[in-house]
C-alpha cells in the first residue's frame, strides 16, 4: 500500500485531485435535481437556497401523477407516449444504422462514395436547419398526427450510421470472409458475427438516440397537433413556461424534471463501459 502511494508522482497527485474536484462540481446539478424533486414547497423558496432536502416528501410526484389527471391529457399519457416512441425509435435506429454501417464498411457496391459523402455532409447540419424540410416530408406523407412523426426524423441518423460504419470497419475482413467460406449468407454474417462484435457501438447508439428522442420537443411542437400524442419533454417544457410566475407549479416542475432526467442517468450507467469502448475504437470523441 505504502509503496503504491510513493510511486505516484506529484503531478499525478495534482491531476487526480483536480479531476476529483471537477467531478464533484459536475455532480452538483444531479444532486440538486434529486433533492429538489423531494422538497416541500416552502423549502424550495428558502433563502439562502439549500441543495440538500431537509424533510423529503413525495407530494410533488403525487400532484404530478394525480392532480393533473383532471386536465385534458393526463401526465401518464405523455410518459406512455415517450416510452413507446423511445423504444420504437431506438429499435429502428439500431436496425437501420447497423445495416447501413455494415453495407458501407464491408460490402462492395456502386455509388458507395456518393452515399458516404452524403452522410458526411449531413453530419454537418444543425438540427434546426432541417425542421422545415422535415415538416414538409412529414405532412407530405400524411403522418402528422401519429407516432411516426416523432420517429421518422430520428430514423436516418448520420451520427449513428457513422459510428456503426467506423466500428464495423474495425472488424477484420478475414472474419467475414471466413464466415462466407463457412457457408454464411450476408444475413447470417450480419446476425452472427457482425452484430455481436458491434454490441458496444449498438449500446452507444441506443444511448445517443434515447437522449435525443426523450428530450425532443420539435416533433410535439411542430408536427403533432393532437395533444394526446405529444411526449413528456413537451409537457415538461409547457409546465416550465407556464410555471414561471406560478409558485404552486414549482413542485410539479421539479418532480417532472427528475422523471425526465432519470432514464438518461440509468441508461448511461448501464451502458457506460461499452460507450467508452466505442469512442476509443471509432476514433470519434
Amino acid at each position, binding site marked *: 500500500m505504502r509503496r503504491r502511494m510513493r510511486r505516484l508522482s506529484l503531478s499525478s497527485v495534482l491531476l487526480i485531485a483536480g479531476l476529483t474536484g471537477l467531478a464533484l462540481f459536475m455532480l452538483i446539478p444531479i444532486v440538486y435535481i434529486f433533492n429538489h424533486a423531494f422538497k416541500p414547497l416552502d423549502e424550495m423558496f428558502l433563502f439562502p437556497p439549500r441543495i440538500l432536502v431537509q424533510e423529503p416528501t413525495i407530494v410533488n410526484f403525487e400532484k404530478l401523477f394525480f392532480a393533473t389527471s383532471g386536465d385534458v391529457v393526463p401526465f401518464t399519457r405523455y410518459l406512455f407516449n415517450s416510452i413507446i416512441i423511445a423504444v420504437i425509435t431506438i429499435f429502428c435506429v439500431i436496425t437501420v444504422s447497423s445495416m447501413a454501417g455494415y453495407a458501407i464498411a464491408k460490402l462492395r457496391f456502386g455509388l458507395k462514395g456518393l452515399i458516404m459523402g452524403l452522410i458526411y455532409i449531413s453530419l454537418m447540419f444543425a438540427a434546426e436547419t432541417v425542421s422545415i424540410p422535415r415538416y414538409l416530408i412529414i405532412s407530405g406523407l400524411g403522418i402528422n398526427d401519429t407516432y411516426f412523426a416523432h420517429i421518422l426524423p430520428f430514423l436516418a441518423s448520420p451520427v449513428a450510421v457513422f459510428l456503426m460504419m467506423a466500428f464495423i470497419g474495425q472488424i477484420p475482413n478475414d472474419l467475414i470472409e471466413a464466415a462466407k467460406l463457412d*457457408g454464411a449468407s450476408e444475413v447470417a454474417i450480419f446476425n452472427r458475427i457482425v452484430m*455481436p462484435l458491434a454490441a458496444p457501438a449498438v449500446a452507444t447508439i441506443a444511448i445517443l438516440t434515447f437522449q435525443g428522442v426523450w428530450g425532443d420537443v420539435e416533433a410535439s411542437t411542430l408536427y403533432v397537433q393532437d395533444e394526446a400524442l405529444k411526449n413528456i419533454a413537451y409537457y415538461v417544457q409547457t409546465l416550465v413556461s407556464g410555471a414561471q410566475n406560478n409558485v404552486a407549479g414549482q413542485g410539479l416542475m421539479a418532480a417532472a424534471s427528475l422523471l425526465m432526467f432519470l432514464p438518461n442517468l440509468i441508461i448511461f450507467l448501464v451502458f457506460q463501459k461499452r460507450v467508452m469502448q466505442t469512442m476509443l475504437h471509432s476514433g470519434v470523441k
Partner: protein
Amino acid sequence: MGSLSCRHIFKYYKGEHRPAVKDFNLEVSEGEFLVLVGPSGCGKSTMLRMIAGLEPISEGDLYIGDRYVNFVSPKNRDISMVFQNYALYPNLSVYENIALGLKLRKVAKHEVELKVNRTAKILEISHLLDRLPSQLSGGQKQRVALGRAIVREPQVFLMDEPLSNLDAKLRAQTRAEIMKLHSQLKTTTVYVTHDQTEAMTMGTRIVVMKDGEVQQVAPPQIMYDQPCNLFVASFIGSPQMNLIPGSVNRREGKYYFETKRVLWELPQRYGDSLKAATSNLRQVVLGIRPEHIGADREMPKKYPCGMTAGTIEMIELMGSDTFLFVNIGESTVIVRTEAGSPFAAGDQIEIAFRLDRIHLFDAEQGGSLTSQGVTSL
C-alpha cells in the same frame, strides 16, 4: 474429385493496369500439397483468394473437381481456408467456431457434435472446446483454425501463411503436424508462404511466383537442383546460391567460364546446351550452391573442379555446419564445410568449385542455360 485446375487465370485489380496475377496455368491433382511461394506482393494471396471465390477472376477458367466454378460463390465451392491471423470468431467458443460451418449447412445436431469432437481429438484441442479464442495461445488458435477447416471435409484446403504468426519452434512443430494431417486426410491443399524453407519441406510440388508470374513449377528437389532462372535459383535454398558474373567463351570446341580472376574449363556435358544457346562469347552468371564449394584438398581429386584463392571474411557457425564467407576478389561466396573445420576469419584459403554442379544463367534474361530440359511450367 479433389483436383484443381487453373487455366490461364489473370487478375487485374481495379485501377491497376499491371496484373496482380498473370497467366496462372496449373493443374493440381487430387491429394497434392501444392505450395505457392514468392516474395511479398507477388500475387500469392490474390491467387488463393481467387480459388476461394473471395476475389473475382478477371480472366481465365477455374475448375474444382470437374466443376467450372468461376461464378460459384465461396460457400458453394466446397473448399475451406485457413487465414494468417486465424480469423476465429471472437464471440464464439472454440466448439462454436468449429461447428459454425456445419450448423450453417444444416448438418444434424448429433452429427455436428460427433464431427467437432472427432476433429478436436485429432488436433488435441478437446480440452479447449469451451474457451473463447481470446483465452487461447497463438499455437492453440492455429489448431482451432485448422479444425474449422478440416471439420467440413472439403475437396480442397487453402492456407494463406498459416504459420507466420508463430514463433520459430512452434512453427516447425505445426509444420510437421500439418504434414501429418495431410498424410492422414489426403485432401488437396494449396498452401501459400513466402518462406522457402516451408515450401521445400512441405510441398509435393512448389510454384515459385514473382510479380504475378509463375517462374517455375516443380517438386522441391528438382526446384533445388535445376532452377529454371536466376530468380528461382536465388530464392530457393538457404543460404542462397552463390552467383558469380562472368562470361562463357568457346575455344577449339571447348567451353570456358571466365572472369577477371578465373578461367575454368567447363565439363563436356554442358557443351550441347551451351552450343544451342551461345554464340562465341556470352555474358553469364554462374550459380553454385554452398555445399558444392569445398575447402578441403580431397575434393578436386573426386570431382572436376575449378580452383581459386580467397580470404575468409566471416565464419557462421550453425552447429551442424559451418559457413565460410570467402572473398574471391570480385565477389564473396558462401562455402559450406563440416562443423569444427579449422578455419579462422582472415585466413587465406584455396577453394574448389565443383564444375559438374554449377548452373549457368543468361546474364540479361536470367534464364538457365544449363537446366534447359526442365519444364518451366
